[in-house]
């Protein structure tokens, strides 16, 4: 057991697939051998194997998820859930792709669902009441994920500087109104108002483009 861990540690660290970027066909088809040691460890010691996955993918998974959901806490929660499930349901025994592809695909789906929920939950009932609502409906074009988080980023960038700062302190870093007020030497009320305006503006911008598809899950075929 100890051997498995030691032998892995040598190849641990930010090892990335050393594929030839100029030959995508070959690279795409390759069975990713860079996860060989993780796979071996998962077979022998699932707990330890998942830890290895944590060291390698938790950071990029969280920083990717946060682009969608905007909150560090939510992103880490979503990603942790995936890992927990990966362990408790022994998902590593079922998947045929690389762990990397599985983890990222799942994280993007969950982030997407979270954002959809976040955007729709504050709407009056009549608008959300639609029989076509299905959790399993996800974008069928991969670029829609990138477009979505890029739109989140753009929406953030439209905010006035001070408002954006307050919003990020609250939403992204999870700071309380009081803490932000103390830090920026402004009143709690101001913080409240700024955050309210910021979330309203972002919601508005995202809704214009994403509301229909997000709510009904009807991504038009290409």
């Amino acid at each position: 057991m100890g051997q498995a861990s030691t032998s892995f540690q040598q190849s641990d660290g930010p090892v990335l697939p050393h594929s030839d970027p100029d030959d995508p066909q070959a690279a795409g088809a390759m069975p990713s051998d860079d996860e060989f040691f993780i796979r071996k460890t998962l077979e022998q010691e699932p707990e330890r194997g998942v830890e290895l996955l944590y060291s390698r993918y938790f950071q990029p998974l969280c920083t990717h998820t946060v682009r969608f959901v905007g909150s560090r806490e939510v992103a880490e929660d979503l990603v942790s859930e995936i890992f927990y499930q990966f362990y408790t349901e022994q998902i590593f025994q079922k998947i045929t792709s690389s762990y990397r592809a599985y983890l990222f695909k799942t994280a993007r789906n969950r982030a997407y669902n979270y954002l959809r929920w976040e955007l729709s939950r504050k709407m009056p009932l009549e608008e959300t009441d639609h029989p076509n609502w299905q959790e399993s409906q996800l974008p069928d074009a991969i670029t829609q994920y990138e477009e979505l988080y890029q739109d989140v980023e753009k929406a953030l960038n439209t905010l006035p500087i001070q408002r954006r700062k307050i919003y990020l302190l609250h939403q992204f870093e999870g700071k309380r109104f009081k803490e932000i007020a103390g830090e920026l030497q402004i009143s709690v009320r101001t913080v409240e108002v700024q955050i309210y305006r910021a979330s309203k503006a972002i919601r508005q911008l995202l809704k214009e483009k994403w509301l229909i598809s997000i709510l009904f899950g009807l991504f038009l075929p290409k």
Partner: protein
Amino acid sequence: MNFPITKELLSDYFGGHASALQKRQIDEWATKPENEEFFYACLVEWELQHPQYAVDVPAAIEQYRRFVANRSQNEPVILPAEPAIARFWSPGLRWYGAASVVLLLLVGWLLRSEIRYQTYATRPGEIRSWVLDDGSRVTLNANSSLRVPRIGFGNYSREVRLTGEAEFSVTHTRNDQQFVVKTDQSLDVVVLGTEFTVYSRAQRTQIVLNRGKIRIQRPTGKPANQLTLLPGDQITVDGDQLQRRHVTDPEQYAAWKDHRFVFDATPLSQIAKLLKENYGLTVEIAEPEIAQWTVSGSFTATNANELLQSLSKALDVQAVRRGNKVTFSARTE
């Protein structure tokens, strides 16, 4: 005519610098399953080069270890054998360590419910409907609350907790995910796509099935810990007693949804409970014999006063309301 999709192009694309035409090509390219691995490999690399913030990975692993340890409580956690840690982990510190782990778990646990759950609630006298994330509809009667997980609801769990009274119309999901209503009386309703009413307040729990099929689960050890209901079945749980009865008109149990109250030889003493539960009114019955008088029929009332008025007419009694207190007394001629 198609140019190759390279790491550089994908990097541009992740950063939002790809043109509409390039995006279209990537879309097409990505539909081929053999390109998936390359796509995600590039995504990881790009994410590592353009992080949004520094993630505390050791803390996350620590949390994961606690999760695993918590799961298999009696099995010891295998910690990576690092001598420095082993020395530090002396018997004296072990208790301290265990205590802090327990404390951390406790704090996490306490905060958990706020982070994890969304609560829908109605005030006294209020009836409201919501559509949950999975498309299921819930209507809460007055003074009730429903707790729903914020994350992953419908995806890998559909477990809600009800206090009060509600009508559910549950949608079927593609992955056959069960919908479970938990009540405070250690009774779970497992749903298989259906319409039903659950009543779970201080004294008793009652479930009436309108359409479809549900299963009742109770902790093992109690009598009849699993029971499948068919339309029209009514289950009443009072402490350890479980009663099953067939009703001909299951819809009437959800009549409150339309601000309608259906009574069938219901004694005033029971209506007093309803007034307390739905409107937060404290009821006083002046003469004990009136408490046994019964009411039958269907009443429409959008608020407590309207209901009181109808009741006093039907029973021919006097109902006097002062604030949140109501007194029923025989009419003085």
